């Protein structure tokens, strides 16, 4: 009942003209960011945070959330038409989507991707409403030991999921934590690693680091690769309608993808990417004709596209109810909330109902807008690819600079961004995923504070953590996941002779 009144309140907030406009601008920019290869949701949200400064908190978060889930729609468009995934979560869509396009069925692939995204997005919002308040209630009983274990275990888990070897991902975590210790110590007020620079006392902000690692590093890669021209397939509106068979084949993959994506979104990690990969494998495994996969199977578009959208919704649950971010995109949302003076966490729904329910309701509206935007207007988005790379690179570079500066009116932030950009480019060359660094930077202050409070509470006795059931549960869950993973790796290694797979 509380949920229905909450949602009704949310719609009354989201339907206000300025918030509707914010939602529209957010999903429009999100689709654009999704279409443009390289400029993913992380860089896109970082670039556009300054645009939200003048807005009230609910409009700002509505817009940024719109960019996040909107980018999942846009990413599939170029994956299907050009075999160029707009962002990493659309890589699986490109496999069968592009094959469908080559066989003359690009329209149905686009339509199913958009419809699947819409269904998954809407179901995901229902999921947030069901799980979010419950988790917030549980979280009210969390003390420092729980927060410490949750955040630390989340980081370890994130490293386990990383595409890089565990110790490499752990190096990234160490660097992120080290950066997070720069500035005034939150408990005792001691200046740390500031080397006499007063500006460093406030610490190193998340936004310049993200803009550098994702935005500037992308521009540097574009400069390295030089001009590339995209060839664009034309799609007419009447070509979009899927056949009866295509529609029937898509129903279950969409529903399974939605559930899978939402659940994966809840746990730490690159949820949108992992969920689309996993959904593809599940659909291939369950299919009676797995040989069609890779040659234009509609299920291979429907499942992953639904999964990555539901994952964006799932990832918002820990952000809203615990105030913890486990992905760069939700970290940006969290940073934006704090910039606008809203404190996320278990009491978020009570203290800022306008923002919480307003954003939820706006996501219903936003998903509807995205469906309308992405089906009839798909050729408009594709034509964005005609924007020459040189102009795009210059635009992104300038936006990074101006956005970073306007965050704190600080020249130091631009220096940090450029250094992060150079570092991010180096990481790309080594194929190292920078997201553990970003998450460690976000979680660092919380981990430190809760660890020190825990040690104070425990008075030197480590037994305290063992007496907390939630702590034991989280540690056991992570240990179990790692053990399970190690077991599967070990079992796969068993048939030594048949290791050609």
């Amino acid at each position, binding site marked *: 009942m509380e949920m229905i009144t909450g949602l009704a309140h949310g719609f009354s907030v989201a339907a206000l003209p300025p918030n509707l406009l914010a939602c529209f601008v957010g999903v429009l920019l999100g689709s654009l960011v999704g279409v443009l290869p390289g400029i993913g949701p992380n860089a896109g949200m970082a670039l556009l945070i*300054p*645009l939200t*400064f*003048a807005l009230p908190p609910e409009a700002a978060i509505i817009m940024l959330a719109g960019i996040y889930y909107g980018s999942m729609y846009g990413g599939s468009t170029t994956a299907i038409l050009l075999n160029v995934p707009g962002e990493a979560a659309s890589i699986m869509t490109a496999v069968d989507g592009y094959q469908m396009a080559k066989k003359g069925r690009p329209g149905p692939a686009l339509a199913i991707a958009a419809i699947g995204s819409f269904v998954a997005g809407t179901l995901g919002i229902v999921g947030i409403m069901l799980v979010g308040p419950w988790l917030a209630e549980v979280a009210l009983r969390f003390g420092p030991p729980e927060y410490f274990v949750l955040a630390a275990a989340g980081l370890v888990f994130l490293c386990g999921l990383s595409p*890089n*070897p565990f*110790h*490499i991902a*752990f*190096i990234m975590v*160490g*660097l992120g*934590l*080290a950066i997070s*210790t720069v500035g005034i*110590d939150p*408990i*005792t007020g*001691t200046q*740390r*690693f500031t080397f006499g620079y007063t500006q460093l006392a406030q610490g190193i902000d998340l936004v310049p680091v993200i803009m550098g690692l994702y935005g*500037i590093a992308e*521009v*540097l890669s574009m*400069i*390295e690769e*030089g*001009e590339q021209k995209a060839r664009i397939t034309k799609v007419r509106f009447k070509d979009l309608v899927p056949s009866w068979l295509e529609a029937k084949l898509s129903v279950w993959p969409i529903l399974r993808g939605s559930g899978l994506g939402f659940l994966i979104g809840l746990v730490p990690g690159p949820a949108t990417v992992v969920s689309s990969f996993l959904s593809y494998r599940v659909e291939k495994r369950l299919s009676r004709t797995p040989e069609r996969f890779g040659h234009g199977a509609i299920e291979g578009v429907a499942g992953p596209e639904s999964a990555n959208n539901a994952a964006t919704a799932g990832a918002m649950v820990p952000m809203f109810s615990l105030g913890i971010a486990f992905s760069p995109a939700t970290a940006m949302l969290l940073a934006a909330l704090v910039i606008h003076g809203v404190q996320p966490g278990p009491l978020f729904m009570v203290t800022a109902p306008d923002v919480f329910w307003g954003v939820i309701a706006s996501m219903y509206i936003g998903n509807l807008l995205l469906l309308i935007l992405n089906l009839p207007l798909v050729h408009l988005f594709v034509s964005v690819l005609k924007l020459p*790379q*040189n*102009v795009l*690179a*210059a*635009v992104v*570079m*300038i*936006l990074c*600079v*101006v956005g970073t*500066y*306007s965050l704190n*009116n600080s*020249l130091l932030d*631009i*220096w940090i961004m*450029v250094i992060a*950009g*150079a570092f991010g*480019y180096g990481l*790309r*060359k*080594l*194929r*190292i995923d920078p997201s553990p660094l970003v998450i460690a930077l976000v979680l660092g202050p919380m*981990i430190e504070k809760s*660890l*020190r*409070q825990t*040690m*104070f509470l425990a008075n030197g006795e480590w037994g305290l953590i063992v007496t907390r059931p939630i702590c034991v549960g989280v540690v056991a869950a992570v240990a179990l996941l790692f053990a399970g993973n190690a077991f599967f790796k070990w079992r796969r290694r068993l048939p030594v002779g048949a290791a050609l797979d």
Partner: protein
Amino acid sequence: MATRLLGAGIVLFGALYLAFAIQLPMHTLAGPGAGFFPLAVAGLLLLSGIVAVFARGAQLSVEATAPKALAKVGAALASLFAFCAVLPYLGYLLAALLLAVAALRLFGTSWRASLMVGAALAAATWAIFVPLLGLSLPVGSLFS
């Protein structure tokens, strides 16, 4: 090889970080002091760096880059650093114009087009951020 170099770099960074961390107060009457967590992070950095130096198995590989392309990336980075250096003197409009022109020239765009696009970009972002959003951008000490 790349992994070992990275590991060695991290060990070096970790040692430097540790040297600064141990100068911070470790204990206070109200539990661990400001230096406690940095000490733990330093340990983590050193440990993961050492593992990377000695690890066997899956290793990182450096993506091959043509020397010419690498020079372009270096030039782009240099212009970004130069932008930071001149921004307080030249102000946003002029510095942004120079940065955009540098980026466009690195793509082989003609001087004319670079200057036109650069000027349009600098002016458009200034118009959005200053009058429209009410934020402030550096005017430049040369002009004020």
